[in-house]
């Protein structure tokens, strides 16, 4: 555990830290503040108004934004299905490899990291004919995009889970549980998953963040998600597009904060 003792020379001084943080913060803050300011503009003539924000909740304007809300719904469904793919396929595979097939760890890691090296646009070229088949089996609903997203989030999800998996002695824990009479289902449910909670949550939240920010694949495969809809709307109503971009940004920020919170709490602390 880290101590709060000051180590002289080990880290930048208070002034240097403030300057660095300030400069970096400014780089991020300026465009965001500009976006916020933009959403309150009345028009090219100048002046400020709340109309653009109010329009979002105005029932009369509802039809205008329907497309956007549908897209948001699509994106949320995609996020859920993608997370489900990660939890149902990747997680058990990783646990199984860790416990029973340690030799397959390297190959699995390699396979899971590959998607990060392939640009989305290249991925789509390969995915297009695959989706010809997918459409025939599952139809062309937006959620089928999750199959592709399940692959693009692999590197992030793998890293988060593996970090947790290596920090816990899953082999000894499961052997101990087995020797106490637990079957494999109990080992997984009562012993392994609670100890992999942090990795699982981090993987899920990162997956959600990636899915909400995805544009290329959805756009090139002609599916509507949050990002494609934003681009669409921005062509007719730039204010609303920026408002939604801000909201999406806020949501991802909240997710990231959650991840770091989960990462810093130790298991078991909750009840002491």
């Amino acid at each position, binding site marked *: 555990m880290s101590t709060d003792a000051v180590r002289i020379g080990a880290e930048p001084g208070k002034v240097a830290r403030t300057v660095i943080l300030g400069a970096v913060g400014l780089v991020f803050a300026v465009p965001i503040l500009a976006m916020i300011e933009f959403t309150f503009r009345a028009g090219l003539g100048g002046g400020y108004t709340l109309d653009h924000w109010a329009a979002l909740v105005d029932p009369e304007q509802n039809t205008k934004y329907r497309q956007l809300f549908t897209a948001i719904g699509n994106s949320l469904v995609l996020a859920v299905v993608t997370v489900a793919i990660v939890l149902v396929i990747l997680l058990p595979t990783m646990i199984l490899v860790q416990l029973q097939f340690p030799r397959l760890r390297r190959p699995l890691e390699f396979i899971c990291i590959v998607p990060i090296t392939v640009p989305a646009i290249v991925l789509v070229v390969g995915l297009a004919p695959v989706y010809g088949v997918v459409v025939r089996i599952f139809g062309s609903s937006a959620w089928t995009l999750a199959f592709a997203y399940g692959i693009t989030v692999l590197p992030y999800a793998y890293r988060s889970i593996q970090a947790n998996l290596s920090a816990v002695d899953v082999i000894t824990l499961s052997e101990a549980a087995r*020797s106490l009479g637990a079957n494999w289902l*109990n080992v997984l449910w009562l012993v392994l998953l609670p*100890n992999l909670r942090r990795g699982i949550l981090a993987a899920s939240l990162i997956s959600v963040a990636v899915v909400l920010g995805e544009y290329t694949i959805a756009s090139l495969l002609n599916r509507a998600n949050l990002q494609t809809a934003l681009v669409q709307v921005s062509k007719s109503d730039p204010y609303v597009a920026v408002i939604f971009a801000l909201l999406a940004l806020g949501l991802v920020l909240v997710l990231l904060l959650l991840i770091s919170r989960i990462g810093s709490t130790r298991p*078991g602390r909750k009840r002491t």
Partner: protein
Amino acid sequence: MTDPIHAHPTIEAAQPGATVELISVVKDYAGQRALSGVSLSIRPGEFVALLGPSGCGKTTVLRCLSGLEQVNGGSILIDGNDVVDVPVNRRDIGMVFQSYSLFPHMTAFENVEFGLRMRKVASGERRRRAAETLDLVGLSSLASRYAHQLSGGQQQRVALARALVTRPRVLLLDEPLSALDAKVRLQLRDEIRRIQTELGITTLFVTHDQEEALAVADRVAVMRDGNIEQIGTPEELYLNPTTPFVADFVGLSNRLPAHQAGGVVTVLGRELALLGERQPDGPVFALVRPEDVALASDGVPATVLASSFLGSVRRTQVRVSEDLILSIQHEVGERPQPGDRVHITLKGRPVSASPRV
């Protein structure tokens, strides 16, 4: 505190320990033979230690017995029933591991309860037995702590309670003390023996520490290269090793160049009886215990190199010749100083011998 029920915590009606029998157990790891036909029989309630250098197969024996490893040949009988095909979770064994193995997300109490939960014991009964077993290992007061809030010794105590709470037929201990510091190790070692005696549970204890094995076990099996080299009481192993390996591995031994003929070993000018395996006549190494050598007024001249105080005895290193250094154990009262010229003599007890190559 003075409540008589709590003063003598017992696990009620602990079933008398089981008989354990390993018959010609063979185990291969990726083509490498780890166990080449190990046979071992443990009486009900007996405490047997498996002792040997690392890689000798002692942990493999324990894992085969627990069911964590599948055997490639032979049979394993618990109370006469072959358990080779019984999965680990149905073998009814208790196990304590070398590394800390408490479930980190559960309190000490919940850890102890776990085995009972798996056996679907009703919650009232479960809580009572968990509390009782925690009491047995002296940790009632720390029941609500998590593993990371316990010291290493406390964690291993909880692990012991967790293994015992289901009243298993056999208790398997896989070097449970090796991660602990010396003082705690001694304490817990004695406590394990006390609890084992109290419960009468058949116990197999794996260790590479010969002192630990000799101190705690009814019988010790010394293993080497996937075989049991000798099994006997600690006294038998120490005083009557049947092979040079056992003589060398159990206790400290000086290796002195000697000559063996017809069961008589001639070493440092004395003729001693040969223990154990008969070697072909000719040059051998005699394995002489430090306590079988004494400082004397006359005998073989030697120079003192170092002397260390070990509490109840003193051990002194002396140089007899250019390439012969000897360890002697003697009374604390004698205080040889480095550089002193002394004489040493053998006390005349029988010695083991190993071939000189």
